[in-house]
């Protein structure tokens, strides 16, 4: 096989449609007779529902139906547990999943109470005002610590507490490590991650065709197969009666994975009831409450180190804000727990978390999915230790990196995919070296003195991370050569901009000797590919990519076999290139792939036993466990010492995600991740009051970074292939976003020499105002 495309910066196949306005997004679906839905949402975070009266709404011209929880009858069921908790001994997990429409009680602002169906979205919104709702307010559970005190109001009354989960994991003997340590540093850290805030909001279109007894659902989901299976079950339909299509999706980053959101559950049911297609497009205001968040954790953490800065152990006790329901099991906090260990040798670790129910929107994974929180704690602990021990921050990291000969490296605790956390491969020190080189670490330290003398406040930060990627269970792909010679590849995952149309095409094109533009990828349509899990946890390229590779290889074998029969020669004497198979040295004697495809589907004669018609193959790939990518970010900032505004002067990322399929797409993934990391670190903050009201529910006040806040980034990479899959690839979807918080904290502290002022930045997000307030609070 020649690798013409694999590893090359191939331009994307999907671009043309997107650049000319021809790509189909959810709100572009227009069907004759289509109705429009709008949801009445709770304005209270916690309240008992006394009465909902929809009679006035029903009278409004253009309104077709209004439904509340009571109308659902037996259809009303709490959502499924999406990710079961890993089997960690003695852990507690209290499952409470979201309900399709609130009944008895509302548990967060924005929880839907009723749905209006009307001839237009405008009218549906008018009718929301006609619904009379009587809510009896209850005390809102917002503060994590207060939520756990006896006597706190309860999000779920029957539970008796607000504990969603409690998990303890450990390795080694932390207590002994702390006892013999030269230094133990203990701090409280607060890390808040925000919302994914894709530029396209969510949406669902459901179309029940009574005559064919068939349901088509267009959904902004990252996991169409999973959604189909779930919806078919609740609707009482066979899976073959339901087709879920994830069209072009305008960004995913986690919250669009597979929530079984109330709207996803409502629309198909409504369409069946009314026998008409129905559309719901989330508006931006709804998006702030109705789409899941990722939010805060509070860590009380300590690190025990030797005199020369070697880690002896880490202890961490943390609280995790889970929001009103916990359909994702332990996914987010367990990522925090596992990823905290980072690329370092940590001989003993003692970590306990309590996930807490609050009267706030549901927390589910958003790019990074809890990894940020853990990385922040570890990186900050190392900074504090470096300062105390008078060791350079980059140096203390180097001393603790897992050595290259220690892989595969067992971490001794259990990860989100149920397996023991084990790093498959890695070579960490060169990544750190390359980063320091690229940012000009040594030179900067000298330059900094000069600039300080001129009154300029510049600082540098360096932060390391690992990222568990490419977890199972599996993905599949069906590769088929069509009679026109074009190759079609179908997989079950959805795509939200990751370039799957191109990277999968590269893999297939190389195996089948065709041009990358001759490979058509179908993703996200359950009728085209029946099985699969979805695009999340940086797994699309790894898991589905390998399945595409396997299936393409099988088709290649079939083609060669057919040609060798036709030419009556050995397969070794054949070459597959430029869409045809020819005999070595006799290029004029060839069969095109299209011709072979036709021959593989003969109109006469029998298909031989043990063979199948068609030049096609379906193969599956399931990695035994996740592949671990790693990287280092470094940044130089200048801070205005009076306004505390900052400017990023230089930003470097060096990472290792194994073998790279398409460096152009990879760069894009890293850039986008860093931009989200910058938003998280310094701009984006969900501001709730103590009643659970979000005070900045608009894009004017929830600050996504623009082209002026995101700097030019310099990227480098090293390649340590993963042994866990034949192509050696590791995921890269989240790497850019993970370590940006600690980088900001470190660089700002350095720029403003905050250590000398006894100011420590132990929280994210930061802002000019927050830095000012912290400095002011530290002044006597």
């Amino acid at each position, binding site marked *: 096989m020649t690798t013409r495309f694999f590893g090359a910066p191939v331009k994307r196949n999907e671009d043309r449609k997107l650049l000319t306005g021809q790509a189909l997004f959810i709100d572009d679906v227009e069907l004759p007779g289509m109705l429009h839905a709008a949801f009445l949402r709770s304005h209270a975070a916690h309240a008992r529902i006394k009465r909902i009266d929809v009679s006035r709404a029903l009278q409004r011209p253009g309104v077709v139906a209004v439904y509340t929880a009571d109308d659902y009858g037996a259809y009303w069921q709490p959502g499924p547990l999406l990710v079961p908790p890993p089997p960690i001994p003695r852990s507690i997990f209290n499952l409470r999943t979201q309900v399709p429409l609130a009944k008895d009680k509302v548990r967060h602002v924005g929880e839907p109470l009723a749905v209006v169906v009307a001839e237009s*979205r*405008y009218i549906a*919104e*008018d009718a929301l005002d006609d619904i009379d709702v009587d809510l009896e307010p209850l005390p809102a559970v917002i503060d994590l610590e207060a939520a756990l005190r006896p006597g706190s109001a309860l999000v779920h009354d029957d539970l008796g507490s607000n504990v969603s989960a409690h998990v303890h994991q450990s390795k080694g003997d932390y207590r002994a490590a702390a006892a013999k340590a030269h230094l133990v540093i203990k701090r409280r850290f607060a890390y808040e991650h925000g919302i994914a805030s894709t530029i396209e909001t969510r949406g669902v279109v459901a179309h029940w065709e009574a005559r064919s007894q068939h349901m088509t659902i267009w959904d902004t989901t990252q996991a169409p197969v999973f959604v189909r299976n779930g919806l078919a079950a609740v609707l009482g339909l066979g899976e073959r009666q339901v087709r879920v299509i994830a069209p072009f999706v305008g960004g995913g980053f986690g919250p669009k994975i597979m929530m079984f959101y109330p709207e996803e559950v409502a629309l198909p049911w409504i369409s069946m009831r009314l026998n008409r297609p129905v559309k719901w497009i989330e*508006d*931006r*205001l709804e998006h702030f409450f109705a789409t899941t968040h990722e939010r805060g954790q509070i860590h009380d953490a300590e690190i025990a180190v030797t005199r020369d800065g070697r880690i002896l152990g880490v202890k961490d006790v943390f609280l995790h804000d889970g929001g009103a329901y916990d359909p994702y099991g332990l996914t987010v906090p367990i990522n925090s727990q596992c990823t905290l260990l980072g690329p370092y040798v940590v001989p003993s670790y003692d970590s306990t978390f309590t996930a807490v129910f609050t009267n706030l929107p549901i927390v589910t994974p958003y790019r990074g999915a809890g990894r940020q929180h853990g990385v922040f704690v570890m990186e900050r602990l190392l900074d504090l230790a470096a300062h105390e021990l008078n060791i350079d921050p980059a140096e203390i990291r180097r001393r603790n990196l897992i050595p290259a000969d220690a892989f595969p490296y067992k971490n001794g605790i259990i990860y989100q995919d149920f397996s023991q956390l084990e790093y498959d491969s890695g070579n960490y020190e060169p990544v750190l070296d390359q980063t320091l080189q690229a940012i000009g670490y040594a030179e900067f330290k000298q330059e900094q003195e000069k600039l300080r003398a001129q009154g300029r406040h510049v600082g540098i930060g360096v932060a390391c991370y690992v990222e568990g990627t490419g977890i199972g269970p599996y993905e599949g792909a069906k590769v088929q050569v069509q009679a026109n010679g074009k190759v079609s590849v179908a997989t079950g995952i959805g795509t939200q901009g990751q370039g799957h149309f191109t990277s999968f095409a590269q893999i297939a094109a190389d195996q089948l000797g065709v041009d990358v533009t001759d490979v058509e990828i179908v993703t996200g349509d359950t009728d085209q590919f029946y099985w699969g899990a979805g695009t999340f946890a940086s797994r699309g390229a790894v898991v589905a990519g390998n399945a595409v590779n396997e299936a393409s290889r099988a088709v290649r074998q079939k083609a060669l076999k057919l040609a060798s029969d036709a030419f009556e020669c050995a397969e070794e004497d054949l070459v597959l290139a430029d869409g045809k198979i020819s005999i070595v040295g006799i290029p004029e004697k060839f069969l095109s792939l299209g011709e072979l495809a036709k021959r593989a589907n003969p109109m006469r004669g029998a298909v031989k036993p043990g063979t199948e018609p068609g030049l096609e193959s379906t193969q599956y790939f399931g990695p035994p466990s996740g592949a671990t990518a790693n990287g280092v970010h470094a940044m130089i900032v200048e801070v205005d010492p*009076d*306004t505390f*505004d900052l400017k990023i002067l230089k930003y470097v990322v060096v990472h290792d995600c194994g073998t790279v399929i398409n460096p152009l797409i990879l760069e894009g993934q890293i850039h986008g991740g860093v931009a989200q990391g910058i938003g998280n670190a310094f*701009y984006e*903050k969900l*501001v709730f009051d103590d009643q659970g009201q979000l*005070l*900045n529910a*608009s894009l*004017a*006040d929830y*600050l996504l*970074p*623009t082209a*002026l*806040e995101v700097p030019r980034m310099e990227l480098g990479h090293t390649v340590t292939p993963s042994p866990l899959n034949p192509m050696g690839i590791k995921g890269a979807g989240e790497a850019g976003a993970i370590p940006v918080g600690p980088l900001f904290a470190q660089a700002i502290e350095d720029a403003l020499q905050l250590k000398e002022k006894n100011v420590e930045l132990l929280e994210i997000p930061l*802002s*000019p*105002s927050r830095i*000012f*307030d912290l400095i*002011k609070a530290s002044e006597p």
Partner: protein
Amino acid sequence: MKPAPFKYIAASSLDHALTLKAEHGDEARFLAGGQSLVPAMNFRLARPAVVIDINGLDEVAGIDHGSTIRVGALTRYCALERDSEFLGCCALFADALPHIAHPQIRNRGTIGGNLSHADPASELPAIAVAMEARMRLKSARGERVLAASEFFQGSLTTDLAADEMLVDVEFPALPPRGGVCFMEMARRRGDFAIAGVAVIVTLDMEGRCSKVRLALCGVGDTPVDASEAAAPLVGQACADEPIKAAAAAIQATIEPAGNVHASADYQRHLAGVLAQRAIRTAYQRAVHAA
């Protein structure tokens, strides 16, 4: 996020617009650039029964250069940005316009809509106050002229009566030996200011300040006229001590409330920092002009 129903009328003349407004009063809103009104309607925070579109009224658009500069209410930001004569005379606008939203919004938003909307965090109300602009209000009953400082009554509240329209704004030209500066801090470029300062310093023949006008945005319910607090600068050349003292006096006069982006303490701090920087720059520009 779709607007509630309303009746739309495109006004064919100023008189038509004023007659309509007299008829519908508070039930009606003028639609100028729509860059504040339409978002508010999409959020259903504003639900006018009648929308009077004044975009066709060329008679209230445009810039008139005379001894004073008269700017029609319907003049769009982009027209101000492109008029170099205007930016020369009203140099505070040259500093401030790039801070207002983004090019797409500046292509629609109007000066009259901005001032009538009276967002206390907006740049232009503070500039109007600093420049001692005079606002001409018209209704079917007649017309009156108000000083900018009287026009702004509170957050999103002006002295406009239910039947009145702001038709133009008159700005005095920059005096000789005058220097100006507008500075603000926002979280991102184009966002409303956390705090902003507009200053006009006029120098005497000796290079001392003979008059100072200073107003702030973002730190109160209205644009804050802090010229009195800055008055000790009069008689002073550009020097650290008096500028610091003026900034301290300005900080003492304002009562910022804090918001989701900034604590009140930080806003006050920032007002002082920006005041110092802006006053210094205004001095320097005045010296340059002289």
